[in-house]
């Protein structure tokens, strides 16, 4: 009989330690399938964060490093610089990436490190038991926002892909979800594209996966998926926020140069603008937020 579905080679035999209904398992599988399909498991080094996925090093069969809270991009930066021929990815949650590790995130992106970040955004701290995250929604009740997140006091949730898309080192910033089979397929395509961009030396890549936390949201797995659709996706629209290749550039260096020239021309005004080097038409058309989740 033909085997049509099996465990990816890039996963170990260890049983996931995640709660029922948590989407970490799906995302792990999509990464592992990607490593298998690209044939890079043997040259990949992954970085596990602090958070629920801290034990990711037990689950991925490639070489793995566990990083301090928020420091995965710095660790991944050095791994990639030391092993330029290898594939390096970091797997991070919202507290890890967007709170304690925001400086490392922004600077790795800005340097255009040839690393791939898989960012799990479920709007809560999972492992420590459900505290307010930098991506918790306004009025969202958590253990540390018991009356709901008060934006006047706690500030506003951070839209990471939108923010990072302004940085010249970013080759691909895309937000996906795994709440439906269709979205799982789209997420797989995005993750694979990110790893391909890394292999092709295009620039820094980040895939944000809007995810659930049934345990700390206090919802059943299916209600959690519905809550995600009703509340998280309107605030965090799925889509491609930056894709330099779709914009018509070979890599981030070309895209950055075009952006700098376009800005300089804009500052100089129409009279002084040289006729040459306008930004390619695709530069304004290719990347935008919204429903383009291809």
């Amino acid at each position, binding site marked *: 009989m033909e085997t049509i579905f099996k465990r990816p080679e890039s996963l*170990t035999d260890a049983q996931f330690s995640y709660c029922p209904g948590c989407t970490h398992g799906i995302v792990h599988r999509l990464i592992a399938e990607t490593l298998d399909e690209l044939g890079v*498991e*043997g*040259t*990949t*080094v992954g*970085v*596990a964060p602090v958070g629920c996925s*801290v*034990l990711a*090093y*037990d689950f*991925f*069969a*490639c*070489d*793995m*490093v*566990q*990083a*301090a809270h928020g*420091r995965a991009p*710095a*660790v*991944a*930066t*050095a*791994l990639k*610089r*030391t*092993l330029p021929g*290898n594939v390096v990815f970091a797997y991070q949650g919202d507290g890890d990436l967007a709170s304690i590790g925001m*400086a*490392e995130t*922004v*600077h790795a992106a800005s340097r255009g490190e040839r690393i791939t970040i898989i960012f799990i955004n479920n709007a809560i701290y999972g492992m420590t038991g459900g505290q307010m995250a930098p991506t918790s929604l306004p009025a969202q009740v958590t253990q540390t926002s018991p009356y709901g997140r008060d934006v006047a006091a706690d500030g506003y949730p951070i839209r990471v892909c939108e923010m990072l898309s302004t940085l010249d080192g970013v080759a691909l910033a895309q937000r996906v979800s795994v709440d439906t089979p269709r979205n799982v397929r789209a997420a797989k395509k995005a993750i694979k594209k990110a790893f391909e961009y890394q292999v092709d030396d295009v620039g820094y890549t980040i895939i944000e996966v809007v995810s659930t936390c049934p345990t700390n949201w206090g919802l059943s797995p299916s209600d959690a998926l519905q809550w995600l659709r009703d509340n998280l996706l309107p605030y965090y629209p799925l889509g491609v926020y930056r894709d330099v290749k779709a914009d018509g550039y070979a890599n981030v260096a070309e895209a950055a140069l075009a952006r700098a020239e376009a800005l300089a021309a804009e500052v100089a005004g129409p009279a002084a603008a040289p006729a040459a080097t306008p930004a390619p038409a695709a530069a304004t058309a290719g990347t935008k937020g919204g429903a383009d989740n291809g």
Partner: protein
Amino acid sequence: MSEKVLMKGNEALAEAAIRAGCRSFFGYPITPQTEVAAYMAKRMPKEGGIYLQAESEVAAINMVYGASAAGARVMTSSSSPGISLKGEGISYMAGADLPGVIINVQRGGPGLGGIQPSQADYFQATKATGHGDFHLIVLAPSTVQEMADTVYDAFDLADTYRTPVMILADGMLGQMMEPVVLPERKTEFTPKPWAVTGTKGKRPHNVITSLHLQPEDLERTNIERYERYDRIKATEQRAEEYLTEDADIVLVAFGATSRIARSAVNKARAAGIKAGLIRPITLWPFPTDAINRAAETASAFLTVEMNMGQMVEDVRLTVCGKKPVEFFGRAGGIIPTPAETLTVIERIAADLAGGAN
């Protein structure tokens, strides 16, 4: 052998690191160690190495963690406030058994403190560089030549014992110029089968982690590490002894301060006081053997430090009440003079003479 050249301490250290096989440097600007980073920025591209100015001290030490995990000989350099920020990453390196070399060109503290030379990070370097049960090997150069020699050895010590190693220098050693013979280029290195370089499909995956959720596992790793520390204590203690054989008063001083202490010892000898000097080169492991030997014959100890009294506690622990241990120091970036040190030696000599009557 190489020719003698005139170099700044910070630059001699950086060049010796390269000759020791260091091809990865991650740093962040801070006075008074900036020459190390500037030198690396200039030299690393020519050596095919990595120089990266990190976004923060925290990022820099975590880059050291990453490069070390990948098997590289890697170094970072900072000064006191920056080392505090690196404490987290140093603890993770110790916990994950990752080698690496950390330079602390000390300045006065606490807080932002000042930018003049200091030895006020002795406690931090030898007792609690970060959270958890661990030690670093800590080396204290006292000349520009030793800035080169200790860093050269530091990479081997780090790889041999799979531990971070710190060079505890100070602004005076970093900035001064002296003749130095640079070491030969190292060509043979300790293999690192534990490094994460990709399985190539030929071995089970390597994992670098400091996490052990089962208490028994975590205790076992701590015990194993402390057994390694015992081996380090037994074999790696280093100290220079100067005129200690017949000394009544033994000074203990490290780094730049040891040069002042040596002058004071010479002045004391000229004045008829039998003074000597123990200069710890390893601050951890602390050279207890040398101190213990001296405790058998000397009548008193005097530590001289550029702080409010830190290493004196280790000397007292070692001497264990057998002999009086006194302290003289200046803080805030003020360098003690041989003359004022001599005054203290003379007072101790008078006390000893008085006690004998």
